[in-house]
């Protein structure tokens, strides 16, 4: 298991380097001269030159690339052009909010989606199955900003159960949890729908496997056949797919944060876009990709825990 972990880490290193390169290309080369973008047309040549030197973009491109890679690999993501504070500080200030949201929605999705998916599979082609399938398909069809607005309209504006604004005090756990409810529902809805569907089809697949028949032929009670023999095998594809979906979830959190006016990575990236803070953008891109790489790693690890075949290969 340990060596498996090390191997996985090493294997993701080239991806990370390639990702950083792409970020460099997208953010530094495509937009043209960032100094001009930041200071505007009226800026004096001297001011422009000064900013270029400050940003290190007066150097040749390949040196810029080396600088960028070296500092990025050391965890130095540069400083915001607007606030002048290190990007990493800006990010760590809001990261807990984003993590709260993605993790709580993942938990919600698994807690409801997996049992629902199993139930649908066991009731295949009966009423419960059809209802679950249609409802989950509708859930999957909601763009999060639409479901967020609908939830807001109903629970915050019509019935005033939950606050409209999601800004919370990180130190006050009760407040933090309370403000999290609607955003979590928003993101979690998609997650529930998604996990339900994947679990259902994985379960159907596994229930038709020979080894499930073997278990039944052994006289294992039906309940144990499902929990012990089928579920663990069904979780293998579920974990893979959930891991993939976490990436989409991170993207979706941007929209949720806008709708509920919550602080978080999403708000920071939109602000940076509006302010043309390209240093900030670059740093955020790196952070996002890093999060995805970590997610993939976690997925693989979970995979290794469930499936004995992974460790030995």
């Amino acid at each position: 298991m340990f060596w498996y972990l090390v191997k996985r880490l090493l294997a993701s290193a080239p991806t990370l380097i390639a990702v950083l390169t792409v970020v460099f290309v997208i953010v530094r080369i495509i937009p043209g001269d960032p100094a001009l973008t930041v200071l505007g047309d009226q800026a004096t040549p001297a001011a422009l030159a000064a900013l270029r030197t400050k940003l290190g973009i007066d150097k040749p491109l390949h040196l810029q690339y080396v600088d960028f890679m070296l500092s990025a690999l050391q965890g130095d993501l540069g400083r915001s052009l607007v606030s002048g504070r290190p990007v990493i500080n800006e990010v760590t200030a809001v990261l807990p909010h984003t993590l709260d949201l993605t993790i709580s929605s993942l938990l919600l999705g698994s807690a409801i989606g997996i049992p629902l998916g199993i139930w649908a599979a066991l009731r295949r082609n009966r009423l419960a199955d059809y209802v679950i399938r249609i409802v989950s398909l509708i859930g999957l069809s909601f763009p999060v900003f639409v479901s967020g607005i609908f939830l807001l309209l109903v629970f915050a504006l019509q019935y005033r159960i939950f606050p409209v604004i999601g800004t919370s005090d990180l130190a006050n756990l009760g407040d933090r949890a309370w403000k999290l409810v609607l955003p979590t529902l928003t993101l979690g809805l998609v997650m529930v729908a998604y996990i339900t569907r994947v679990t259902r089809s994985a379960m159907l697949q596994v229930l038709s496997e020979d080894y499930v028949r073997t278990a039944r032929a052994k006289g294992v009670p039906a309940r144990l056949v499902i929990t012990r023999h089928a579920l663990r095998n069904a979780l293998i594809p579920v974990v893979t797919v959930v891991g993939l979906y976490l990436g989409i979830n991170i993207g979706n959190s941007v929209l949720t944060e806008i709708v509920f006016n919550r602080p978080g990575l999403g708000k920071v990236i939109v602000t940076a876009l509006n302010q043309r803070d390209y240093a900030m953008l670059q740093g955020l891109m790196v952070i996002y990709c890093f999060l995805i790489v970590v997610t993939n790693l976690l997925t693989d690890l979970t995979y290794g825990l469930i499936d004995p075949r992974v460790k030995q290969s």
Partner: protein
Amino acid sequence: MTTPATQRASTDQSVLDRPVLAIDDLTIEFRVRGQWHAAVRDLSLSVGRNETLALVGESGCGKSITALSVMGLVPKPQGRVAKGRIDVDGQDIVRLDEARLEKIRGNRVAMIFQEPMTSLNPVLTIGFQVAEALRVHRGLDAAAADAEALRVLEEVKIPSAARRFHDHPHQFSGGMRQRVMIAMAIACKPALLLADEPTTALDVTIQAQVLGLLDDLKTAYGMAMLFITHNLGVVATIADRVAVMYAGEVVEIASVHAIFARPAHPYTEGLFRAIPRIDRSEQTLSAIAGQVPSIDRMPGGCRFAARCPLREPACDASSPRLEEIAPGHAVRCHVRGPARRVGMGAGGGVGG
């Protein structure tokens, strides 16, 4: 090894004489495009203690589903047992509910499947999978079940079983996996073992090992064994009696010696003539022309008539019944049945 059979044998002589498995007039149906069609029709057979009955036939003839029905595992909702009885130890399992069936499966009746590669659960250790049957049926605690499972794994000759007890299936070869399957099946010392093409996926030298093992175990436990196969060589090697199936029906049933020496049904005869043999040179094969009719297009009369060299008008008119032509030898044929047997003379020998 003590003989486990003696431990559970009742002193009542009538129970000893009673067949372990008695199938009577069994019909199993499947739904094809909204219509129920019989995949197995009017099937009757029995297997006694310490006896191996080979159920022979080509793919789709209904032999596997017959075995599954004995386990109460006919897939629902597309399949159903439409009529008939399946008595195991004198208890009709067709009328048992799922909870009662679970108590019998893997306990009094066990089954081995064709595909050792997919029939074991990939995420559980082989030790656990063998011990599970003992925990479920014998109520043993984990330690006792593991100890017993290890003993059974050694009995089926898994090399260094103790060391490999906690290995997963993917670490085993096909032959070894089939041994694990056998261990699982015999763990609770079943009265009846159903073996569904257990050696078809294996290489021929491994097949010989597994056949030898099954035969030894059958004798040691006094089990009744229903051995399903399409390989007549295997039948000749392991069976005491043989039932030949064609298109869902038993067309001939006899002792292994009788059926190889004097096959009566034209289909049985055809099968023998179609096998190329390793011990013959300059053979001429004669193939059976045509193919098996599909389940939703079964003819009204004899199901083999369209391919039969002996076809007569009567064959298309009505279905023949399975009737005895000699003690213990029955055939389902208008031409070769008992009514016409008188004028037939010596009867057909083995091909060529």
